[in-house]
């Protein structure tokens, strides 16, 4: 059986990121690798590629990592972070097109059951059909 997919939470706010991670921990438990980050290096609102890389690292799993983001900059910086990952990790990290809090809880629930990265992303994205 493959390792549970990890979840990385990327918000513009450290508090939103931490709160979202708390919800995942409380509702789904500790069996799913989890990383989170929020805020820019100066302590303001924003995202930083460096912190996103650290969050992906915290959430790292051989099964891959699903990234949940809030607003535009979180997504572009997450894309940049993924490009900076070692080649063997790049294909195992995906950004989910889903609301950050709900998506993180749904994705983690699916990951807990041993689902693949594609299934985890599909579950998070099922929330907001195009």
């Amino acid at each position, binding site marked *: 059986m493959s390792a549970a997919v990890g979840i990385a939470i990327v918000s513009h706010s450290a508090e939103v990121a931490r709160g979202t991670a708390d919800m995942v921990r*409380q*509702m*789904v438990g500790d069996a799913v690798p989890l990383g989170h980050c929020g805020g820019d290096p100066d302590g303001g609102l924003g995202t930083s590629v460096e912190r996103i890389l650290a969050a992906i690292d915290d959430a790292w799993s051989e099964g891959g990592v699903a990234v949940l983001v809030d607003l535009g900059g979180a997504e572009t910086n997450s894309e940049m972070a993924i490009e900076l990952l070692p080649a063997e990790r790049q294909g195992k990290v995906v950004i989910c097109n889903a609301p950050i809090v709900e998506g993180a*809880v*749904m994705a983690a*629930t*699916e990951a*807990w*059951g*041993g689902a693949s990265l594609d299934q985890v992303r599909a*579950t998070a994205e*099922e*929330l907001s059909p195009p």
Partner: protein
Amino acid sequence: MSTTQEYGSILLTHAVGLHARPSVKLTKLAKGFVARIELAMADNGPWVDAKSIVKVMGTKAPQGTVLYFRAEGADAAEAVQALTELVARDFDEGGGDAASG
């Protein structure tokens, strides 16, 4: 080998209904069984996959709803029993006080 299909129903007494936390618990429990498990709010459906967190939460079942389970597969009977018991125990949340935990 014949297929076993098991049914069960239970009154949802949890104060906030099938909201986020209860839904996660129900889905996690369902995923632990190999049987195909479905959930409905009426005995004639529509049935949704009890292992899908989005579908379970999407039922938005309020307090007072009777939840119906049906399961098919090797451990179907155990699955229906475990799920109805979870609902009967108010998802182990002591009356469903949303502030607890």
